């Protein structure tokens, strides 16, 4: 009797019985994942977007009793329109004009010459004299777009800041909506 024909070898070992199932399962799994990756890969060139509050992160702080500062951190691939940026404070009114920094000039067929901001924009806003400890609400109206070819509607955001002690350092920036924690970044 050849040694290979032993009684126990006629019964398939447990692992051999499971192997085709495992192989099948892994093949199916790989196919599903590969297909998903392929399709996402081909279509993601189309559009991949941040929600506006993450694309344009608004923050403000009180510098002193006569000045607040607004800041937009603009994600890479996004821009804000200079002429759509407007500020108001409460209690108001503003103690003077808001000098918006110059932006990058862009020629728009319909609106003509427009200026846009990228990366970061800081704006100093003069307010009526406010006492240390007083709350001031800084409202920013903004509108921006993404380079991939979409625009977000104008939004109005408000942040309340507190005037720092006289002669002391400027208050800390207060973020409009705390950036959400993301796992894959």
């Amino acid at each position: 009797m050849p040694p290979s024909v032993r009684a126990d070898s006629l019964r398939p070992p447990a692992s051999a019985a499971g192997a085709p199932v495992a192989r099948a399962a892994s093949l199916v799994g790989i196919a599903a994942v590969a297909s998903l990756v392929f399709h996402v890969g081909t279509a993601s060139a189309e559009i991949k977007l941040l929600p506006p509050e993450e694309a344009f992160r608004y923050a403000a702080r009180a510098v002193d009793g006569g000045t607040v500062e607004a800041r937009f951190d603009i994600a890479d691939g996004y821009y804000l329109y200079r002429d759509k940026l407007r500020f108001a404070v409460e209690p108001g009114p503003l103690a003077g004009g808001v000098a918006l920094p110059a932006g990058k000039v862009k020629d728009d067929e319909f609106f003509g010459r427009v200026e846009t901001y990228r990366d970061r924009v800081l704006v100093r806003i003069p307010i009526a004299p406010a006492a240390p400890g007083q709350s001031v609400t800084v409202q920013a109206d903004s509108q921006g777009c993404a380079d991939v070819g979409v625009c977000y509607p104008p939004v109005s955001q408000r942040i309340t800041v507190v005037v720092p002690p006289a002669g002391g350092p400027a208050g800390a920036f207060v973020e409009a909506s705390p950036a959400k924690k993301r796992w894959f970044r």
Partner: protein
Amino acid sequence: MASAGRRWIVVGAAVLALLFGAWVARSLLEGGGGRDAGTLLAVALPDLAGEQQAIGQWKGKLLVVNFWATWCAPCREEMPMFVEAQKRHGDRGLQFVGIAVDEAAKVRQFADSIGLNYPSLIGGYGAMELSRTLGNSLMALPFTVVVGRDGQVLLTHLGPMKQAQLDRLVESGL
């Protein structure tokens, strides 16, 4: 014999998985296909003359509803392509309808400047909410919904459409 059968089952399952992956990817990215367009077709909005226009009046056509605004440069850039498609295929049953998230005066001015040849309704910011219910979760523009002759949503698309994509739709949907 048995192993050949098993192999076919595995291959079949792999093919099904491939199709499933494609379907998941498609529904994640483009979305909308195969849904009933009832919500959209039930909406009525004022046109540039201030007359209420029910979107349902265009049911039975290949309907392309484009959410846009004058403050959205990518929206304005793709519209001449829609004007051209409306001109070429309108008599075969292609109907574009713009829903502007904007003020009527600005829409009128832009419509005149490009010779808009399809209705533009004024949705105001409420239109953004309508687009959200149709799958525009980020409420960005342009957003386009294509409704087939049978009233089913064929496609929802965020961002400018490509000429080839529009041509394919016209070919298969008309």
